[in-house]
């Protein structure tokens, strides 16, 4: 079972709450995804948050809330947002997102590391969204992040695992869970990330903006499970040459 900061999660599919057109669709999709951890943007939280429609939905589901700092452009802003989230929602979990770049919303490595250091010190369970940079991921691990969230492609692009080779290195080296975040557009891509050995994936846009969010959420749930099972089973390596299903060398066994 996936374990982050000593808490167990029944699902390896993390989801988000943005981009859905209606709270009812959000709810049905989250149920179908069988997710156990859901991120929500603190900046979208209605200040009279008892009335917040997203939060109302989340409260009815067996999920851990993962507030995110989306909108923050500096470490200071992200730390502020994380502390506000802890105060309003009573949770130590935070998905650290700092993206000053407004076009591709790419994470700022310098500010992210700075904020991660401060937040870990302040007792948060920090899950930083970061580039698929193996050294940065090690640095984030060293300052105490509970997991790391390298991107597959720019957020919301559905391009899949463009950073494949670096994700592989990150997965190989990490001592904390690796959650591939951003860019996963199809269940097959989520499956691929899991087969590579990622501990989990986070998918939002692909579910929320699909023609049928509920069916897509269900497809992602299955793909993540299949990918995990395949990883555990030891997916075979690709090779150039054909390999017969019934090898002719079987006759060797009959020889004395």
């Amino acid at each position, binding site marked *: 079972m996936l374990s982050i900061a000593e808490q167990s999660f029944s699902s390896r599919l993390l989801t988000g709450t*943005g*981009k*859905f*057109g*209606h*709270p009812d669709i959000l709810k049905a999709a989250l149920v179908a995804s069988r997710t156990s951890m859901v991120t929500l*943007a*603190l*900046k*979208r*939280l*209605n*200040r009279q948050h008892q009335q917040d429609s997203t939060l109302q939905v989340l409260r009815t589901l067996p999920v851990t809330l993962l507030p995110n700092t989306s*909108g*923050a*452009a500096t470490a200071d*802003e992200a730390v*502020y*947002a994380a502390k*506000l989230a802890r105060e309003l929602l009573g949770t130590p979990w935070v998905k650290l997102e700092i993206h*000053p*770049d*407004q*076009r*591709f919303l790419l994470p700022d490595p310098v500010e992210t590391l700075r904020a991660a250091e401060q937040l870990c010190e302040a007792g948060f369970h920090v899950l930083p969204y970061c580039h698929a940079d193996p050294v940065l991921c090690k640095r984030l691990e060293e300052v105490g992040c509970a997991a790391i969230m390298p991107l597959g492609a720019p957020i*919301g*692009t*559905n391009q899949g695992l463009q950073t494949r080779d670096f994700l592989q290195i990150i997965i190989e080296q990490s001592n904390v869970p690796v959650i591939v975040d951003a860019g996963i557009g199809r269940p097959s891509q989520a499956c691929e990330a899991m087969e590579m050995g990622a501990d989990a994936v986070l998918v939002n*846009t692909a579910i*929320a*903006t699909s023609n049928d969010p509920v069916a897509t959420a269900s497809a992602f749930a299955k793909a993540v499970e299949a990918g995990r099972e395949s990883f555990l089973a030891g997916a075979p390596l690709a090779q150039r040459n054909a390999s017969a299903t019934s090898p002719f060398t079987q006759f060797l066994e009959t020889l004395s």
Partner: protein
Amino acid sequence: MKSADALRQYDWDDVSLTLYAKTQRDVQSALRHPAPGWQEFLALISPAAEASLPSMAEKANALTRQRFGHTVSMFVPLYLSNLCANECTYCGFTMSNKIRRVKLSPQQIKDEIRAIKTMGFDSLLLVTGEHETKAGMAYFNEVLPLIRPHFSHLAMEVQPLSTDDYRKLVKLGVDSVLVYQETYHRAHYGQYHLRGQKQDFDWRLETPDRLGEAGMNKIGLGALLGLSDWRTDSALTAMHLYLLQKAYWKTRFSIAFPRIKPCAGDQFSPVSDITDKQLVQLICAYRICFPEVELSLSTRESATFRNSVVPLAINQLSAASQTQPGGYSEKSDALEQFSTEDTRSANDVAASLLAQGIEPVWTDWLQQFGR
């Protein structure tokens, strides 16, 4: 003035000739382009693209949903004054118009805020009029602290200010400034703006640069469609946007599509009418070439038009707007800048969005971001 300098290199007539020469083949290749740029934008706003409007709309819609999801952000304008120290031949607030001039007092502002909050808004656009001395920094220093705590996001439509003043506005809690060039046609600009600081075309053109240098979180651009050829004006607005995005990579940008509306004392007739269909074409072209830029549509447009166009590509929507100072707590048509077309209540607009599968987002920012 990085982007203004580069923009001044573009000659109106050259741009115009280039865009009117675009062919259907250019339009098709623009629609297939993986990362469309300015030449593609020109093709998509050209007359040749009118035939491809359905494909443009589909593409724009898909890009909008991918980037912004099934959501639209809601905001409302609050007119602080109708004071003006400029003579602009197309505007109801122009200084020679004999209308009663008002500037809201702190108490009136509180009344307005109460009325606005009752409607559910959490994102506010302050419209200040353009009067440096009577509605300038001294007034903003006084009233912004009264307003800021009540809203998660604060935008301002204000006369061009200095970089230092913009830095002060950032500190006072302003997240976004909207400043429209009106027209990028220098000679026409001179004919429309007869008196006041606004006569200075270049000072206005350099305004987004000053905002970028001051670290303003978001900058709103646009041309007042109808003042000159709307296509060429839009082509130059788009170039301005490209240049600004490169220069100020941490800044968000928004585009608005104001069309000339009848106003008090109005003798004005547009040079270049933009039809409903052409406005849709323009909105789609922006979306296709700028998937990340926030597109805004005001209550200048009718409910019917907004109902059909908003789901296509719009990200920011005003509702229940009053365009005269004090209009939310005490309604009087006499002072308004222009008459609004979509007069539905905020609740009605929100309900109609939900019915179309779009969730209205009222809160999408933290006051402390960007300070």
